[in-house]
C-alpha cells in the first residue's frame, strides 16, 4: 500500500526509539502515509498499525485525536488558516474572507475541481507573523494580504 521510499522513511522513524517501542513512530508513520496517499482511510490506518506491529485501535486513537490527520479525502492543497486571537487581531478575518471569496468555498469545503480545501485552524505557534496558513500541513505562509494570497494560489499548480 505504501511505496518502498515511504517504508524506508518509517523505518528511519522507528530507529529513533528503543527496541520494542515501535508504537512511538505511529505519529510519523501516519504522517508519511498521509503525504503519500492524501488522507488516511481505514485501510491505511490498519496497514500502518500492522507495519508497526501494534493493535489497529492504537493507530486509530492517534489518527482521531490529532487534528492534522485527515480521515476523509481533501483537496490536492489543504489550506489551514489560523483564526485564533492573535492572528485575528492581526487581520485573519479579512484573509479568510478573501480566501473564501477567491476559492468560492467555506471552511471544511473543497473546490469542485478537487484542487483546494479550506480549514479553520488553531494556534500554530507563529503569532508574530500572522495572519498565516499552512499548505498541506507542512509549508507555512505568513503575513497574509490579498497580494500574498494571490501569489500563493498562483504558485500552486
Amino acid at each position, binding site marked *: 500500500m505504501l511505496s518502498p521510499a515511504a517504508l524506508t522513511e518509517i523505518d528511519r522513524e522507528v530507529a*529513533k526509539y*528503543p527496541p520494542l517501542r515501535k*508504537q*512511538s513512530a505511529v505519529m510519523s508513520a501516519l504522517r508519511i502515509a498521509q503525504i503519500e496517499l492524501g488522507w488516511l482511510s481505514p485501510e491505511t490506518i490498519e496497514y500502518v498499525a500492522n507495519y508497526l506491529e501494534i493493535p489497529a485501535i*492504537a493507530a486509530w486513537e492517534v489518527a482521531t485525536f490529532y487534528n492534522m490527520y485527515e480521515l476523509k479525502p481533501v483537496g490536492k492543497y489543504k489550506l489551514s488558516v489560523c483564526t485564533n486571537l*492573535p492572528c485575528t487581531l492581526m487581520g485573519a478575518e479579512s484573509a479568510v474572507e478573501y480566501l473564501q471569496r477567491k476559492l468560492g468555498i467555506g471552511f471544511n469545503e473543497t473546490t469542485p475541481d478537487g484542487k483546494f480545501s479550506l480549514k479553520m485552524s488553531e494556534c500554530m505557534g507563529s503569532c508574530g507573523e500572522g495572519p498565516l496558513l499552512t499548505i498541506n500541513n507542512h509549508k507555512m505562509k505568513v503575513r497574509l494580504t490579498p497580494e500574498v494570497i494571490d501569489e500563493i494560489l498562483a504558485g500552486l499548480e
Partner: protein
Amino acid sequence: MANEVIFHSIHLPESWKLENYLKVGGFDALKKVIAEQMPAEEIINQVKISALRGRGGAGFPTGLKWSFMPRQFPGDKYVVCNTDEGEPGTFKDKDIIRYNPHQLIEGMVIAGYTLGAVAGYNYIHGEIFECFERFEAALEEARAANLLGKNILGSGWDFDIHAHHGYGAYVCGEETALLESIEGKKGQPRFKPPFPASFGLYGKPTTINNTETLASIPYIVKHGGQKFLELGKPNNGGTKIFSVSGHVAKPGNYEIGMGTPFKELLAMAGGIKDGRKLKAVIPGGSSVPVVPGEIMMDVTMDYDSISKAGSYLGAGSVIVMDETVCMVKALERLSYFYFEESCGQCTPCREGAGWLYRVIQRIEHGQGRAEDLALLESVAGNIMGRTICALGDAAAMPVQGMLKHYRNEFEYHIKHGKCMVNGG
C-alpha cells in the same frame, strides 16, 4: 541587555548552521564540561545560582527540577525538550530552533550528561514542520562533528537526541501528555504523582524542560550562574524572550533582561499600531488573565511584578490589544480554543469548556441572559483545580480575568444585544 543569551547570533547569516554556531563560541560549554569532567552536582549548583526558572509557563526553578532526578537509578533515563508551542501568543521556541538550534542541542547534551540520561527527545509542534526539519538537519550536523551520538568528543560517553513531531493537539504541551504522545498514544495527561522524575517516558526517570530553558544552559555553564542571574533580577534570573503579537507595529520576539519595564518592551515592538491607544494586554499567553493597559504600563516584565498585577508571566507571550477590541468577541475566540482542545479526559474541563464557550457565544451574538455572568463565574470556578492538568484552569482563567476588568462590556452586550466598543 538585548539578545544576550539565546539570540546572540541571530543577526548572522545562516546562524542555524553548526559552523556558524562554532564561530561564536558554540559548544564551548560542552567542551568545558567534558574536558574538566565537571561533576553533575556542580552543574546543578550553577543552574540553581542562576535562578533560571522554567520558560514554558510554570516558572519552576530549573536547578531544583534537575535535583529531583534520581541520577544513580540504574537503567535508562531521559531528557525531554518541550517545543510544543501552541498556546495563542507563543512563538519563541520556534525561533530558537529556527535560528539557533545548536544552542538547544548543546543545552540538551549538557542536561543529558548532568542527569545521567541515555537519550533525549525534542517534541516539536507539528504545525512548524519546516522548523522540525531544520532541527533534524542540525542533529545530523552535530552527530557528524562528534558532538552528539557515540563517544561524544572522545569522552567514552554516548548520548543521542531525536526529534519527535506533534500533529495538532495543544494539550501535548502539558508535560505528561507530551510523554504519552512520544509513546505513540493519544495526548492525554497523566495523573501526578508519580512525577516524570520517577516515572516518565516509558516509565523511566525523565526530566522535561522547555526549549528556551535548555537553550539557556550553555550560557550558565560557560559564564557561571551568577552572571546569568545578573542579566535579570533576584528570583527572576537571566534574559527572557518575550513574544509580542497583536496590535503593535513590529510584532516579534524580543530577548531582554527580566525586570525590563513593559513600556520599554512595547516601545521595542514599535508601539501601538496606527497611533491607536493601548486597551489591554494578555501578558503570558492566552490562558493567563488579561491586564488593563493602564496597569500594564507600570509593570516590569518578570514573574513577581506580573503576578502582583494579577496575572502570570507564563511563557512570555504578550498579546497586545488596542482600543478597538471588543472583549466579548476576544473571549469568545479564546473560549472556543479551549473547548476545541480539551482532551476530554476530565468532566469539568470537557463539559465546562464547552459550556463557557456556548454562553460567551450567545452573549456575543446578542442572546445573552441576565443570569449569564453569574453562570460563567460558577462554571469557571467549578473547573478551576478540579482537573488532572492545567488546561481546565487555562480555560477558566481568561473568563475570570475578563469579567473582573471588563464586566461592563459583557453587561452592555447582554442588555443591548450589541457591542459598546464598535456598535456591532
